[in-house]
């Protein structure tokens, strides 16, 4: 055995990195990105060249007020809907079959029909029963389109949120109930202190989606003369025929939805960090 190292092959450099070629995918990608950029520039250009100080000064404040109405509608309906939804979800899981069937019918009816139709039903339907509602002393509430829309939104989102709560509560393993029971906690305590906190964490993501859906579908309120952001925009367009107002509204809605989505993602990551491996 002579010198073994002499026969070894010298280490070779790795082959040069294959240069990324301009394949069909990249050409298409760059082309499409270019189209987006052009569209973006066209939008900005049209916003500037079509800028009408009169229209802007007269209608932008109204749209901001409308934005406030939209925000109120969404926050109130989602939070009140959440409370209602919790009870509906509990009713859905009840052992009493009448209660659970009723809750099922409620959820099914609201999820299976269009929100716009529900708004019409409540708004115009209430108008048909003015005398009764006045006699019952609640006509002041149903007289305002805003209140009718708010009530419809609460009932609608409660149905969706009830499904979310039900799924997430049922996703908590049975062992949690059993463990709590063996520690001597009774059912209500177990539910509020052990099950619900864990369920809410799994419900975070779908709840975020529901809030975003609510922001978008709140635009439906404008159809029954509520001046939310969409309503104010429609008013501005019908009076000025200035198409830019729709573009402003689109930008505002997009910004709200994107911000919400990102904030919610951060929030969720923060709240579930103990679950990450």
């Amino acid at each position, binding site marked *: 055995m002579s010198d073994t190292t002499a026969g070894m092959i010298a280490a070779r450099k790795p082959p040069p990195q294959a240069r990324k070629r301009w394949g069909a*995918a990249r050409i298409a990608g760059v082309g*499409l990105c270019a189209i987006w950029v052009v569209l973006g520039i066209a939008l900005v250009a049209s916003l500037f060249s079509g800028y009408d100080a009169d229209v802007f000064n007269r209608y932008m404040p109204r749209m901001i007020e409308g934005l406030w109405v939209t925000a109120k509608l969404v926050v109130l309906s989602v939070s009140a809907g959440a409370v209602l939804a919790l009870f509906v979800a509990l009713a859905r899981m009840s052992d009493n079959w009448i209660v659970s069937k009723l809750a099922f019918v409620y959820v099914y009816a609201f999820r299976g029909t269009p929100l716009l139709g529900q708004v019409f039903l409540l708004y115009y339907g209430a108008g048909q029963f003015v005398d009764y509602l006045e006699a019952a002393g609640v006509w002041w509430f149903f007289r305002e389109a805003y209140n009718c829309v708010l009530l419809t939104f609460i009932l609608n989102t409660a149905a969706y949120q009830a499904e979310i709560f039900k799924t997430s509560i049922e996703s908590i393993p049975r062992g949690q109930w059993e463990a709590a029971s063996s520690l001597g906690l009774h059912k209500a305590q177990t539910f509020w202190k052990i099950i619900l906190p864990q369920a809410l964490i799994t419900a975070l993501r779908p709840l975020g989606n529901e809030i975003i859906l609510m922001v978008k579908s709140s635009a439906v309120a404008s159809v029954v003369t509520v001046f939310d952001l969409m309503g104010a925009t429609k008013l501005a*367009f019908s009076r000025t025929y200035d198409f830019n107002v729709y573009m402003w509204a689109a930008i505002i809605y997009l910004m709200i939805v994107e911000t919400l989505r990102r904030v919610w993602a951060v929030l969720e990551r923060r709240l579930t960090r103990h679950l990450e491996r």
Partner: protein
Amino acid sequence: MEVLSQLAWGANGWADELAAGTWLTVRLALATLPFGLAIGLLVALAKASGERSLEAAANIYTTIFRGLPELLTLFIVYYGGQMALQRLVGLFTDSYVEVNGFVAGMVALGLVFSAYASEVFASAFKGIPAGQGEAAKALGMNRWQAFRLVTLPQLIRLSIGGLSNLWLVLLKETSLVSVIALNDLLRMTNLAQGSTKQPLFFYSVALLIYLVLSLISSRGLGAIEDYVKRGEERRA
């Protein structure tokens, strides 16, 4: 129940109008579906391409059409399309053109549907192991064959659940076209209640029709789901 007599067929009742509206609602949803699915699939392919510029372009598309309220998208397509078309035609003649409400509704709902569908397809793509494509390549299939014979059947199976939900959403969203004076079920109901002063009754009927449509669709979709999942292992 004298209210019920207003549901008579023909000139004295509103049943035929409601039926015509329902038919338009169904047609609109069915016409939107293939167009939305095709664009959704293309956008999802772009998202799964691995080419960054293509992914960016696809993500901008979804961000826009998932973020805008459907009603606003509809107005932008309807009035914006009207104005753009008028300007285009104005270059040649000075005749008046009108955008077809059905087409505007189809485009707007299709854009929204495709944005959501692309997310469903994109996550289904992620559910197909890369080894599947490599195996297809090793068997000598070209890219189209690999897509058609290996990827697509699995893609359908993985995305059918999400797409079923989107169909039900689409069916409900068609009601928005009633605000651009397209005679769908909800608008026919508006007309009926306006002339009879029976909003509670007519809107209840309309919502019930929507409910039945959803019920029929979920039955049908359930059957399709069973069919495309027939190769899957039965789980208890």
